[in-house]
Every structure is written in C-alpha cells, then in structure tokens.
C-alpha cells in the first residue's frame, strides 16, 4: 500500500485559526496535552514535596513549632505543632500525590503523550479526543484528592496503601469524607489512566511510520508501550478494589471488614496485585528515557539493545508474580512467602542486565555531560542502590526486621526519587527544547543537578541507618521509644538535608519558567540525536511531520562508520546510495 501525501497536512496548517480554548485548554494535540500533564504534575510534585517537608519537620524537631505552621488551621496544627491525625493525613497524601499525581503522570502522561507520536513518526495519537478526555479526567481527580484537606475530618489518613479495616470505617481514623474522596479520586484517576493506556497501545501498534519496525523503536517507546500494558491491566484491579472499599464505607457492605465476615487480607492482595505492577509503571518509562539519553550522551549505540527490550518485558512479566513480598509479615501463609521470595529475587536479574548494559553503553564512549546526561547517569547510580537495598527485604527472614521500617522508606525513595525523578529531570531537560522551542540554561541546570544529587543522598542514605536501628515508618513521634532515642540526631540531619533538597528545586522552577520565555531559541536538533522528533521544528507544528517519514535505521546509530560528517545518524536519514543497515545486527 503506497503511502501518499497525508490529507491532514493542509487542514493542520491552519491551526492558528483555532480559538484559544481549543488550542490550549481543550486541545486534542498530543504535544499540548503532554505539556498540560507536565504543568499539572509539577504542581502536584510541589504539593507532595510540601507535605514531605512538614512530615520531616515533625520527625526532626517534634518539640519546635513548624515554621509558618501558625498559618495552618487549628484542626491541623494548633500553635504550629502538627496534630497526629494531620500527620497521618500528610503521610497518606504525600505518598498518594507523589505516586499517582506526580511520578506516574510525569512519566506516562507527559512523556507517553509527547514522545510516542513524535518518535514513531505519527501525526498524533490514534484517538486525540480520548487523549483530551484522559487529561480532563485526571484534573478533577486531582482536585477531589486535594479537597480532602478542606473537609471535616481532614484528608485520608490510612496511608497511601489504605489498608482495611483502618480505611474501611471512619471510626478507626476519624476521617470519614476524606477517605471517601480519596477512593473516588483514585477510581477517577484510574479511568483517566486506562483511557490513556488504550490510546498509547493502539498508537504504538498501529501508527508507526513505514520502516519503524518493532526493533527499531527507541527504548523509551518500548518502555512506555510495556508500561501502558501494565497500566491497562493493573489499574482496573485497583479501581475495582477502591470501589469495593468505597461501598464498605458508604453503603454498609463488608468486603474487607471482618465484623461483617469480610477479609482484611483480601484488600492487601488486591492492592498489591495492582501495586507491584504499579511499581514498574513508575520506573520502566524512566529506564526507557534514560537509555535514550545515555546513548545520546555517550555517542554510542545502546549496549545490547535486544536484551534491554527483553529485560523490560521480563521485569513487566515478573511484576505480576511478586505482590506477596509486600505481605510477608501480614499473616499470609508462610509457605507462600517462599514462593514470593524466589520470584522477587529473580527481578534482580533483568534489573542487573539493564544496569550493566547502561554501563556498557558508556564504556568506550565519548561522553558529553550535558544536563540530561548528568541526571541520567545519576539515575543509574541511584537506581542501583534502590535495587540492591531491595535484596534485603526480598529475603524473608531479614524482612521480618526491616518490614515497615525506614529501610523501606529509603528503598522506595532511592527507586522513586533517585530513580524515577532523576529520569524525569533527564527527560524534561532533554526534551524541553522540543516542547517549548527554547533551551534551558545549562549552568543553572548543572548547579540544580549537583545540589539535588548531594542533598538527595544526604536525605535518603541515612534513612537506611534509621531502618537498621529499627525505626518504624509512619510514626508521629519516634522519641516515644527508648530504642529510637539514639536516632534523634540522624532524624534532625535528614530533616535539614530534606529542607535543603526541597529548596534546591527553586533553581529548577526558575530555570523552567524563565527559559520558557527567555531561553535561547532551540534548533531542530540541539542534542544531535537520532530520533524522528529531532527532524522537525522545535516545537513541532500541529500534525508533527510535513510528510510521513520513512525510517531507515535503528534508534541509536551514534558514531556509525557509515557516517563521515557527524557522529550521529537520524533514523530517517537516507545515506544516498549506501544500503541501510538495520541496527543491532
């Protein structure tokens, strides 16, 4: 079937005639929706960070009123001292906002939307209007989530995992409406995610440009594609469970409430059957974009492209078989613990493949340490720590001691902040010129990276030591316990580091906002990269490509001997008479 000129070319040329509301608010352009997701999730990242600062203050300086805490109402912090119920709400909302409204939309919503059509050579998503609805479902979900803070009883306070029966009955937490809003918001956000995932999968399967075979897809797209499958299959389980829990709270059902014959552990099984794939939803896209950036920075093809793809698929598959490792101490049959320990341990294998292949990519490279590369290498360095600390909890006997301690908190933050968030910084700084047509300030970017890297480690590394000391998670006042009093100094150190870490992000915010208006104009291809998105103007016009590109090369043909005039080879570049060689062979 011959590919003829696309009829939408002319139609899309007249985008300037679209009214403001269609162009920027209810836009169906995947790039605009990507930017909308970016702004929304950065806002939630900030709110989630603010919650973390209040939590840290309480843990570091429980006897000193929170600076500025006088602004909070009496129901949260009378005299600047946080109430325990407000502390529980903060812990819950910090986790929820970061997982569901910051990291997940930043990776899946922003880069899924922005990158998939551009990188596969499509004019837009398969269902642009559905895409718009996906965003405009996420926004009310976020508003509902935050509104919990303003209702009587406060925001949800049963942890982001909302274990039943604590979360099933307001009598146990003192939070009635807030807990219900939490569940409504999660169910609504689930709908948004499922719509998005349906769109991504259809787009990647159907709309790849001619020549864009599966094994010429950039790893970022592979990762987003596999992630979309995980979202599609995992989120509905959470939605189903959340609705059941909502019914327990509102219409008197007893799914998870043992007083009526329900099963508390059923909630945990459902939650973690969703929850562990969710963990990979939060890290796989990060692995994908980091692979792109490291290849670009190293000016080398990704080491072992095929095994990188199989590792992504392997991690996604194993993710369905390990949920029980969150429940070793839950009263689940200990024999099951053995099975889940083995499957969990096996995840180390594809993870190790990825780490060593990233190192292999840097090996004998010609590494340009641009800001995205700094973040991408930090991702690898930090993800390794998060991966290795996971081995402790995977070992069932060691988990007896570490379960529900700060060791877990350190682990999740090395993966989610050290991993996902560094990947997000790498991705934002890398694709910022394509999104906004301007470059971010590199000097400011370097300072921001350095401070973030240092303060991140000062904040989260000592949390391992807290965990080794037996410090429980989610406790309001560690000094209540004799065995935790020696750790008070560590807690203070962490709090100060966390405040510095949070403050350092001002540099990023300034760079982000100022560069949008005042940054140097970006060329088509400022990073000298191979992806199709770099062959079109920055920012790309509506419809992306003036003519459907034909893909001739793999995504990472850096420093190819076939090219004499540069050390990169755009995927659609025709090397004249020379026959195109497929990558990875």
């Amino acid at each position, binding site marked *: 079937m011959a590919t003829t000129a696309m009829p939408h070319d002319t139609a899309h040329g007249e985008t300037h005639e679209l009214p403001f509301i269609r162009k920027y608010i209810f836009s169906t352009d995947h790039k605009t929706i990507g930017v909308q997701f970016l702004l929304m999730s950065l806002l939630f990242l900030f709110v989630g960070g603010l919650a973390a600062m209040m939590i840290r203050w309480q843990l570091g300086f429980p006897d000193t009123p929170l600076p500025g805490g006088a602004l909070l109402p009496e129901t949260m912090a009378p005299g600047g001292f946080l109430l*325990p119920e407000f502390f529980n709400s903060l812990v819950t909302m910090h986790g929820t906002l970061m997982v569901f409204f910051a990291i997940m939309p930043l990776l899946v919503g922003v880069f899924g939307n922005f990158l998939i059509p551009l990188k596969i050579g499509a004019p837009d998503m398969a269902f642009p209007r559905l895409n718009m609805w996906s965003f405009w479902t996420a926004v009310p979900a976020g508003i509902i989530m935050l509104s919990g803070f303003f209702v009587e009883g406060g925001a949800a306070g049963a942890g982001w995992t909302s274990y039943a029966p604590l979360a099933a009955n307001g009598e146990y937490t003192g939070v009635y409406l807030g807990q219900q809003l939490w569940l409504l918001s999660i169910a609504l956000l689930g709908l948004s995610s499922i719509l998005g995932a349906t769109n991504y999968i259809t787009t990647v399967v159907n709309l790849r440009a001619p020549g864009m075979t599966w094994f010429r897809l950039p790893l970022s797209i592979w990762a987003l594609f596999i992630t979309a499958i995980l979202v599609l299959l995992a989120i509905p389980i959470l939605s189903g469970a959340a609705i059941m829990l909502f019914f327990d709270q509102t219409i008197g059902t007893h799914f998870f409430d043992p007083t009526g014959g329900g099963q508390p552990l059923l909630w945990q099984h459902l939650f973690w059957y969703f929850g562990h794939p969710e963990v990979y939803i939060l890290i796989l896209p990060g692995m994908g974009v980091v692979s792109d950036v490291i290849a670009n920075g190293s000016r080398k093809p990704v*080491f072992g492209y095929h095994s990188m793809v199989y590792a992504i698929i392997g991690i996604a598959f194993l993710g369905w078989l390990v949920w029980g490792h969150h429940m070793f101490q839950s009263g689940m049959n200990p024999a099951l613990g053995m099975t889940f320990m083995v499957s969990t341990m096996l995840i180390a294998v594809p993870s190790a493949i990825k780490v060593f292949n990233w190192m292999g990519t840097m090996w004998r490279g010609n*590494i340009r340490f641009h800001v995205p590369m700094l973040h991408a290498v930090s991702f690898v360095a930090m993800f390794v720590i998060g991966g290795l600390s996971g081995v402790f909890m995977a070992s069932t006997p060691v988990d007896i001691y570490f379960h529900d301690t700060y060791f877990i908190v350190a682990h999740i933050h090395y993966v989610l902040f050290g991993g996902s968030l560094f990947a997000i910084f790498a991705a934002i700084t890398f694709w910022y010129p394509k999104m906004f047509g301007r470059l971010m300030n590199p000097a400011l970017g370097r300072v921001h990276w350095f401070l973030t890297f240092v303060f991140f480690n000062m904040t989260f590394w000592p949390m391992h030591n807290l965990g080794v000391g037996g410090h429980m998670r989610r406790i309001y006042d560690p000094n209540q316990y004799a065995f935790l009093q020696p750790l008070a100094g560590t807690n203070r150190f962490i709090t100060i580091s966390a405040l510095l870490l949070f403050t350092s992000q001002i540099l990023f915010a300034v760079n982000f906002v100022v560069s949008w208006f005042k940054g140097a104009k970006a060329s088509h291809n400022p990073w000298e990269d191979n992806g199709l998105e770099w062959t079109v103007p920055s920012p790309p016009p509506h419809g992306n490509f003036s003519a459907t590109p034909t893909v001739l090369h793999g995504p990472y043909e850096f420093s190819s001997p076939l090219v004499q005039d540069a050390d990169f080879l755009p995927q659609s570049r025709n090397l004249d008479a020379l026959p195109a060689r497929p990558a990875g062979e």
Partner: protein
Amino acid sequence: MSWFLPHGASTYAADIDFIYYVILVVTGIAFVVVEAGLVWFAIKYRARPGRKAAYTHGNMRAEVIWTAVPAVTVIAIGLMSGGVWRSVKSESGIPANALSYRVTAKQFEWNVTYAGPDGSLDTADDFTIRNQLHVPVYRPVVVRLRAEDVIHSFFIPAFRVKQDAVPGLNTHVWFEAMETGEFDIACAELCGIGHTTMGATVTVHAAEDFDRWVASQATTTALR
C-alpha cells in the same frame, strides 16, 4: 549512622542477622563495583575533541556473564533465607515446649493474656495485663495474636520479631529470649491517630523469678 544491627537478644536473632550481613557484604561489593565503574567510565570516556566513540552494539558473552552472576547470587541468598524463614514463621517451627500467650491488639494497646499457673490458655486461671509481656529467659514462648479493630503489627526489635495482628485472623509468633531485662514492643503498622503511642514492654525474667511473678499475679488476679 550505623550499618550494624542493634544487639539481638533472641535465639534466632543471630541467624537473621547473619543473613543480613551476608546480603550487606554481597550488595556492598556490587555497589562499589557499579558506582566505581560509573565514575571511572565518566572520567575515562569523557568527551574530548577529535575522539570518536567506539561503534559497538554489545557483546553476547559479557551479557551472559552479567546475567548469570546476579541470578546465581540471588538464588543462593534465597536458599539460605528459606530455612530460617520456615523455622521462625511456620506453625511447625514452634518448639514443642513453648509457653503460650495471647496478645490482643486494639487501638492503641497490647493486652497480654497469660496462661496462668496451669500453663494453658482459656482456662479459669488466665489473667490479662495491659502493655506488659513477661517471659522467662531461655524458654520458647509462642504469642497467639489477635486484633479487635484494625491491623496492628507486633514488633520486638531486639528479638527480631514482627508479625501483623489481623482482625478476624489468628496469627502467631514465637521466640526464645536469651537475656533478662526489659525490651521495647512497638506497633509497626499504621493503625490510627495513636499509632505512635502503641508501645509496650517485654520483661525477661530468670526462670525462678518468672515462676514467682506468675504466682504473685495469679493471686492478685484471684483476689480481684
């Protein structure tokens, strides 16, 4: 900021701690290798004018090696962990001469029911004390856990004991203390507003002191 676990005071603490230290060493080596490699590559292969990166798509042998080594290592750790796990957590791991207790958790207290002089639960001489667990040294004890309202987690750091107490479900944990003295009990699972205050104490007595203590408690309870 220590990487050494606090002093362990139960019989299996040493087994658990040993696995922890093995993992600490193994992951420590992996950590140093990877981080040092990253720094080394970052310096050695930094961009310099006139250089061009090597053009390679990978190396099958290297990839097989770095797939196999982690696989073998983690499976070895898994096998090592399995035995300890079974002896600590499975019903069959409970020593036959274990002394029985029932701990009923509720917001925000641990109610300890003692078997009394006759040594068996659910008899007339049982007595219950709030937030105090008294056990004899060098004698296995099994704690039958129940929860009245929400999930709590019975955590004795010094004994390497942790087990959720789930409403509607019977769980258990056993341990054998090796030292006399007082140790902290904490709740490790978020259980509501007073979660942080849900502490208790376990007192380990010498064998003869323990018998005396039980007798005195049984009398005071009977007098009540």
